[in-house]
């Protein structure tokens, strides 16, 4: 038994030692990356190491700065054609340089990449695509316009991504999105995105639509009413308050919750909300009470701060 334990322990120690040496001391080198990556680089201190078949080689960056301009043309016209670039790359390589520096990625390339993703048939989470688009540092308005131009040519999930990008990027597309918001029979997710857009960007023409989503649900999915109840927080006024108070009596938890959120965001007094608080509807009362309490709790520390400042 003792021998067995010793032998096992020795084996374990050997394996762990190997593991440590293999991964932590850098004996491990991957020489078979995917085809698209032609070489593997590593940063060691201030040196860049290029892993080749012969082992690690120090890599010196010798680069050429590439603008988009050519004498006689505006740089924003992107007048240089593909052949010229390819010829230059050959010359740059022959000169002994190994790196080129570019400034921004073209909108065309972004669109091309999106369509490639769209056509690949593989699942890509919309969140990843929208967040990826938001990292674009070039001309956002140009990108928005190009995305909208190809809106009808891409799949439904990609359309949702484009709408979300438009909303988050802050571009105004009221004229384009209003018909989509109004069009019954279009995909629900697209229209939900439009409702949220008009929460962020006020447009009086969208207001009656949002009200009717809340007040006349009809055959629509309940989400229309719930999201509209949240969006109406951007359209304060007596008419809105009336609609939201009515929605407090809804059978759906989410409609009640969002209506209560929007109502409390208007900073109404207790008296203004009296009819809901005194109503026999316990569900409506409790959720509104909760939102009011929460709002008070969130303001309490700030009030205290203000008082302390006043005392000083």
């Amino acid at each position, binding site marked *: 038994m003792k021998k067995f334990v010793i032998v096992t322990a020795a084996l374990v120690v050997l394996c762990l030692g190997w593991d440590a040496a293999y991964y932590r001391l850098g004996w491990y080198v991957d020489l078979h990356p*995917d085809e698209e990556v032609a070489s593997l680089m590593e940063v060691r201190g201030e040196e860049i190491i290029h892993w080749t078949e012969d082992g690690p080689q120090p890599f010196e960056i010798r680069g050429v700065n590439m603008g988009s301009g050519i004498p006689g043309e505006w740089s924003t016209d992107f007048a240089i054609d593909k052949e010229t670039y390819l010829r230059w790359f050959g010359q740059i390589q022959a000169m002994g340089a190994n790196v080129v520096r570019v400034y921004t990625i073209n909108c065309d390339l972004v669109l091309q990449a999106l369509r490639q993703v769209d056509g690949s048939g593989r699942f890509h989470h919309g969140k990843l695509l929208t967040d990826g688009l938001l990292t674009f540092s070039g001309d956002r308005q140009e990108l928005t316009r190009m995305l909208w131009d190809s809106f009808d040519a891409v799949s439904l999930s990609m359309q949702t991504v484009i709408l979300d990008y438009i909303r988050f990027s802050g571009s105004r597309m009221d004229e384009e999105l209003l018909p989509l918001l109004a069009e019954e029979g279009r995909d629900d997710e697209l229209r939900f995105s439009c409702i949220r857009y008009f929460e962020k960007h006020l447009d009086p023409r969208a207001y009656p639509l949002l009200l009717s989503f809340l007040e006349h649900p009809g055959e629509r999915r309940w989400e229309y009413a719930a999201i509209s109840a949240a969006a109406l927080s951007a359209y304060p006024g007596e008419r809105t308050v009336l609609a939201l108070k009515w929605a407090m009596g809804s059978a759906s938890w989410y409609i009640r919750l969002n209506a209560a959120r929007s109502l409390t965001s208007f900073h109404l007094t207790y008296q203004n909300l009296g009819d809901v608080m005194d109503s026999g509807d316990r569900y409506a009362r409790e959720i509104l009470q909760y939102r009011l309490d929460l709002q008070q709790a969130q303001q309490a520390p700030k009030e205290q701060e203000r008082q302390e400042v006043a005392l000083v």
Partner: protein
Amino acid sequence: MMTDGMMEVIEVFLHGVGVFFILYLIGYSTFLFLAVVVGASTLYQTKQQTLLKNVLEKNYYVPVTIIVPAYNEEVTVVDTVRSLLALDYKTYEIVVVDDGSQDNTSQVLIDAFHLHPIRQPIRRQVACQREEFIYSSTEQKVLLTLVRKKNGGKADALNMGINLSQYPYFICIDADSVLQYDSLREIVRPVLEDDHVIAVGGSVRPCNGITLENGRVTKYHLPRNLLACMQVLEYDRSFLAARILFDKFNGSLIISGAFGLFKKDVVIACGGYDHATMGEDMELVVKMHEFCLANELPYRIRYATSAICWT
């Protein structure tokens, strides 16, 4: 004559036992070997992808509710919540469910995090005991809610957490375990990779021989005690080999109660955790498999190797 017959019977029996054990050993060791080979190759691939930066690295997130059921945990619960508040993640909330503790579990939390009482309506979608009071705090980085209810067991406490949660995904953890700082990011990754994922299991590893600071491992060595050492090896074999193999064909039956992510609407459709069973975590996963198969919903139950919970 009699003894001869007896001997023959015994001989046949022993022979049978021998054959059974040979088959058993061949079968089991084949399984173990297969599991280790598949596990090793998968981990190797992951390592390669990380090296090529071919994994999701940025702060892509989905909102998650962390449910902490606590019963007589006044000693550990504050540290647990503090470590949850230190997680490197953007949108999450913490719901601590005090399951009718006889000690001061609720009071120490209220004192430590300056919680204030709030009248919060609960949407009862799965059955659970009545609540006694609810406290919450908006001063922290994320919303922290404490609910105290009549004692009803761990499953009951988790159900209360589900009812009170506001986000579409929830994570259940034990009140005495510590999540590694990046574990939330890691455990939602399968959800971002595939829309049909309804549950993700995390790695649970014993923290013998580990030094943790703010949810980061600073020192790691095998425990000096031989038995504890074997326990570590057994946990690692199970989580790094067998689970990865099961994961390949959607066969994960257990998502440890100590660390797992679930899609809330599917869990609610299945009726939540079952009060009557001991292994409520396994029961739930089997129910979810059954629900999705019976309703012909496409689904995946995944396992995230790199989402680590120290226990």
